[in-house]
């Protein structure tokens, strides 16, 4: 069989252990965000969303970056397994991207009264990226499985990470003629304990993302192995 044990490539920590760790960290994060960190003077309770919104956004970037790295490895080395890893990473990234848009929207509503604001550069960037990576899936699902699909997905994934900084600058530049800038930065100023709570949340969410990545990868590899087994038995 070409794919050996599904877990053979990432071996250090088992999935159930990861899941348990993630659950624990998320619990801790919630405690920190809602009870330990002080309330923000300006925004009050709605600012709490920030503790999740920004880590989710950062995790999405990390997932896209990880997916692009795997894509690069695929094009460089040609080993099939990188394709699945790249795909799963980007899948996770898109999910977290959608969550970024959702939490960002909630925050916008709570802070400024609108479900969508073009003022938040981060939010606009995620909208563009969400469109881009949605097209990634449309591309992938419209091509037959095989090296062609793997190669095209990988190239497109690389275009994605190039797009992130370029879009960021574009959106910054667009401020001049799209909207007057009313908010200079997305995040409020953080005190020491706020920053600590933020870090806990960040670690927790990163751990959740990594766990989901491993779970999905495991599931897809098991699927593939099952299929191969079936083929061999019926051949």
């Amino acid at each position, binding site marked *: 069989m070409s794919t050996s044990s599904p877990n053979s490539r990432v071996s250090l920590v088992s999935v159930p252990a990861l899941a348990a760790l993630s659950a624990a960290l998320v619990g801790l994060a919630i405690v920190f965000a809602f009870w330990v960190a002080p309330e923000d003077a300006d925004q009050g309770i709605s600012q709490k969303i920030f503790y999740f919104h920004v880590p989710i956004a950062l995790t999405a970037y990390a997932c896209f970056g990880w997916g692009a790295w795997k894509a690069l490895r695929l*094009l460089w080395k040609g080993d099939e397994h990188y394709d699945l890893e790249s795909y799963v990473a980007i899948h996770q990234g898109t999910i977290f991207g959608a969550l970024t848009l959702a939490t960002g929207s909630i925050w916008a509503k709570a802070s400024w009264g609108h479900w969508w604001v073009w003022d938040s550069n981060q939010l606009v960037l995620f909208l563009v990226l969400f469109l881009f990576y949605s097209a990634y899936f449309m591309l992938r699902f419209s091509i037959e499985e095989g090296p062609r699909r793997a190669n095209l997905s990988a190239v497109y994934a690389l275009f994605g990470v190039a797009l992130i900084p*370029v879009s960021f600058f574009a959106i910054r530049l667009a401020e001049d003629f799209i909207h007057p800038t009313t908010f200079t930065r997305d995040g409020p100023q953080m005190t020491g304990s706020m920053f600590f709570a933020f870090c806990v949340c960040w670690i927790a969410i990163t751990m959740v993302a990594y766990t989901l990545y491993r779970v999905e990868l495991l599931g897809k590899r098991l699927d593939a192995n099952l299929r191969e087994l079936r083929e061999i038995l019926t051949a």
Partner: protein
Amino acid sequence: MNYLADVAALARKDLRLELRARDTLPAMLLFVLSTLVVFHFALPTGADEVAAQGLLWVALVFTALLGLARAWAPEREGGALEGLVLAPSDRSAIWLGKSAAVFVFLALIELVALPAFALFFSPLQAEAVLGVLLANIGICAVGTLLAAMAAASRTRELILPLLFLPLAIPLVVGGVGSSVSTDPGRYLLFLGLYDAVFAILCWASFEYVVSE
């Protein structure tokens, strides 16, 4: 240099094909002019001159998409793309030759579209025209590669706009900025940056788009 000779031979081939078939260019021309007329009706009175400048870019991007959808059609018809891939020349030359030809087509269209725009709406500054040229490079480089990807997909023409539009957003920002901003230099620089980054990316990755 052999590489440039290959690129030239390939680009010449595309120009010759279009000259002979004459289907894509007239269609793009008619499309862009029709779009400009539609914009006149889509802009209510009181809308800025500035809004019209923005719409020029919408027209250009969608006209480019129209042309790009057919960019690889000649290669598809006789299976010629495989013939090019089999040749000892660098695969990136295939992309560069095709992009160059698409650039020429787009520039020819703009030779008519820009004066038409100036006539219907408002005159264009020199920076705007420079912006158009710089954005063209990006559109052709990225669009040609994405069109090759789309050709491999089951949904072909349907998927090209989806792949292209998110990548076109920075170009639109750069282009509109060079038209309306008080400091167009920044936007032109940005367009140059986009072109550099994505042209290099396309050049390096085209090999993988056509190989299995």
